[in-house]
C-alpha cells in the first residue's frame, strides 16, 4: 500500500519535474520560466526525498528554490520590459541540430541505463534510516569531504565578488555614458 503511495508520489513528482522542465525552456517570458524552474526544483526535492536524501531535499527547497530563484526573479524584474524572449530563432539548422543532439544524448543515456538496468541498477544497497540525514552529511563534510566543503565556500565567495564587480557600474562605463550623452 505504502509502495503504491510512493509510486504515485514518485510519478507525480517525476511528471511535475519533467513538465516544469519543459515549461522552463518553452515559455517565452523568462519570468514564467523562472517560476517553472522553481516548480521543477520543488518536484526534484520530492524525488530527492524519495531517494533517501532528506537533507538535500531540504537544501534544495530552502537554498535553491528559495534563495537562488528569488535572486533570479529579482534580476528579471530589474531588467523590466525586456522580458519577452522569442522561443528560439536564429538559423533554423541550429535549432534542428540542437534538437537532434539533445535527443541523441537522451537516447544514449537511456540506452546506457537500459543496458545496466537488469543487473547493477536493480539491487540497491540497504541503508538505515539515518541515510541522507543532516547529521551524516555534516559528519562527512567535516571529515572525508572537508576540502569539498571549503572549496564550495571559496567558489561562492568568488561568485559573490564577481556578482558585485559585474553588477556595479564602473568609472569607465560612466565616462562612456557621458561621452555618448554629450554626443
Amino acid at each position: 500500500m505504502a509502495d503504491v503511495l510512493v509510486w504515485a508520489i514518485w510519478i507525480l513528482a517525476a511528471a511535475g519535474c519533467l513538465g516544469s522542465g519543459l515549461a522552463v525552456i518553452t515559455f517565452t517570458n523568462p519570468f514564467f520560466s523562472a517560476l517553472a524552474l522553481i516548480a521543477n526544483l520543488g518536484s526534484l526535492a520530492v524525488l530527492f526525498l524519495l531517494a533517501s536524501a532528506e537533507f538535500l531535499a531540504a537544501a534544495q527547497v530552502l537554498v535553491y528554490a528559495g534563495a537562488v530563484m528569488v535572486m533570479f526573479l529579482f534580476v528579471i524584474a530589474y531588467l523590466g520590459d525586456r522580458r519577452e524572449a522569442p522561443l528560439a530563432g536564429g538559423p533554423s539548422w541550429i535549432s534542428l541540430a540542437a534538437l537532434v543532439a539533445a535527443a541523441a544524448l537522451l537516447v544514449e543515456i537511456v540506452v546506457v541505463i537500459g543496458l545496466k538496468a537488469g543487473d547493477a541498477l536493480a539491487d540497491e544497497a540497504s541503508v538505515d534510516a539515518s541515510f541522507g540525514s543532516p547529521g551524516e552529511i555534516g559528519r562527512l563534510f567535516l571529515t572525508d569531504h572537508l576540502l569539498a566543503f571549503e572549496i564550495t565556500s571559496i567558489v561562492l565567495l568568488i561568485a559573490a565578488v564577481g556578482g558585485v564587480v559585474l553588477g556595479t557600474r564602473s568609472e569607465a562605463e560612466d565616462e562612456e555614458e557621458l561621452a555618448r550623452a554629450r554626443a
Partner: protein
Amino acid sequence: MTAGAWLCLLAPLCGALLITALGESISRRTAAWISTLSVFAAFAGALIAFVDMLGRGHEEREAVTTAWTWLAAGEFHAGLSLLVDPLSVTMMLIVSGVGGLIVLYSIGYMDGDPEERRYFAYMSLFVFSMLMLVEAGNFLLLLVGWGLVGLASYLLIGFWHERPSAVAAAKKAFVMNAFGDAAMALAFFVLIWQTGTLDFAAAFEGAGGLSQTFVDLVALGLLAGAVAKSAQIPLHTWLPDAMEGPTPVSALIHAATMVTAGVYLIVRAHPIFELAPSIADLAAGLGAITLLVAGVIALVQTDIKRVIAYSTMSQIGYMFLGAGLGAYGNGMFHLMTHAFFKALLFMAAGLVIHHLANEQDIRRMGGLRQAMPRTYIAFLIGSLALVGIPPLSGFFSKDSILASALASGGYGRLLFAAGLAGALLTGLYTFRLLFIVFLGEPSALVREHDHGSAHGEGPWTMTVPVAVLTVLAVVGGWVQVAGIWHPFGEWLDPIAVGREHLALVEPTVTQDYVTSVLAVGLGAVGIAVAWMIYGSRKWSVPRVPSVQRTLEHKLWFDELYDAVFYNPGERISGLLRRGVEEPLIGGSIEGVTLGAREAAGALGEAQTGYLRTYALAIAAAVAVLVVVFITVQ
C-alpha cells in the same frame, strides 16, 4: 726530354696568365710580344725534347712525367702527367712551331684592335691547351686539353663579341664540341669501370681483355669526340661558322692544329681502334664522306675563309681515312703538311682580307695579283700543295694515304675511289678560289683599296710567317717519299704497341705509283676545269638551281639539326615551363594554398559567433564519443 716538354707546356700558360694579370698596365704591343715569345719558348721546349729524343734509342723514346695527382677517388687515380714520345713531340713541334708563326702574324693582323690583350691571352691559352692535349699522359688529361682547346676556340671565334653572328658561331662550336667531349667522357667511364684506369698504357693493356661490345663502345665514344673536334660529318657544321673569328685564329685553330686533334686521338688510341675494327672502318668511312661532301660544298661558297674551311674539312677527311685504315703514319704525315699549307692559305687569305679592310666575299674580289703579287705566289703554292701537285708537300702526304687505301682491300678501294674524286674536287674548288680572287680584272673593291705597293702587302710580322710557311709548304713533304724513304714513319714507329711497325697497311711500290699518277692527274683536271670556268671563263658555271641551293645551304645540315635538336629542345623547354613548371610545380603550391585558405574560410564560417553552436559542437561530440565508446566496447 721531360723538361723540354714541361717548358713547352707551361710557357704559353705563363704567357696567358701574365697578360691577364698585368691587364692594362702593359701596352697592347707588349702583350702581343709576351704571347709570341711564350709560344716560341714552347717551340724551343719542343725542340729540346725533340733533339734529346733523337739522341736516344728507339726503346728509350718514351717517358711519362707526373707533377701531382690531379684527380683521385677510391681506386681511381689520374695524375697531372705528360707523356713524351715521338708522336707527342711531333705534335708539339707542329703546334708550337706553326702556332708561333701564326701568333707572330697576329701582331700585324690584330694591330689596332682595342682588345688586343685579350686576344693574345686567348691565343696563349689556346696553345697551352693544345699542348696539354697532345702531351697528356692519360686519357683524362687528354680530355682536359680536348675541352680547353674547345674553350679557347669558343673564346677566339667569339672574339669580336659585339657581332651576334660571331657569338652564335662561338656557341655553336662549343656546344658541338661539348657533345663530343661528353661522348668521349662516356668512353672513359667504360674504361674506368672495366679497367680502373685512364693511363694510356694500362688502359690499352686492359682494353685487350674487354668484350667486343665494350671495346666498340670505347672506340665509338672516342670517335665521336674526334669527329666533333675535327668537324667531320655529322658534327661538322660548326667549322664554317667558326670563320667568324679573326683569320689567324682560323689558321691556327681551324686549320693547323685543333681540328686535326681528332686524327691525333685516333693515332694515339690506335690500340683501341685496332681492337674495334668496325669502328675504325666507320672512322675511315666518315672521313671519305666528309672529304667528298666538303669538297662539293666548297665549290659554291662565296666567303674566302669558308672555302678554305671546307677544304680543311675535306683534308681532315683524308686524314681520318688514313688513320681509320691503319695508316697512322701517313695520317700524321698529312696532318703535318696540311698544317703548313693550310695555315699558309689562311694567312695569305688573311693578308687579302687585311688588305681589303675585312672584306671576305670573293664575289667582290678579283685581280688581286697585281696589287699583291707576293701574296699571290704564296697562295698559289699553298693551293698547289693542297691539290697535291708534286713536288709540293701535299703530294707526298695525300698520295700515301690514298695508296694505303688502295692497299687495304675491298673497302679500301671504295674509299680510294672517294679519295680520288676528292682530289678532283680539290683541284676544282681550290683554283676556283684562286682564279676568282687573284686573276681577272681588279674589282671595284680592289681598286678602292689599291694604295699602291708603298705599304707593301702587310707588315713584316705578317709577311715573314707567310714566307716561312710557304717554304715549309714546299719542302714539308720531303721527309717521306713513298717507296723511297720513310723517316717520318720510322720516327713514329715506337708508339706501336706490341707490334713491329705502327702502320697496319703497307702499300706496294706499284700501288704508290698508280695512286700518284691518278691523283695528280685528277687534281690537274680539276685545276684545268677551274681554269676553263673561272680563269679563262670559256665555260660558264653550270646552273642547276636545286643543286646549287642545296650546296649553298650546306646540304641542309644546319636546318636539320635545328629541326631535330635545337627547336625541339627549345620547344620542350617551353612546354616544360608552361606544362609542368607553372601548372604543376607552381600550381601545386597555389593549389595547396588555395585549399588551405578555403578550409580556413569554412572553419571561420563554422565559427558563427552564435554561442549556441559552440555548445552544440560539444553536445554533438559527446554524443559521438559515447556511441563510439559503447559500440567499440
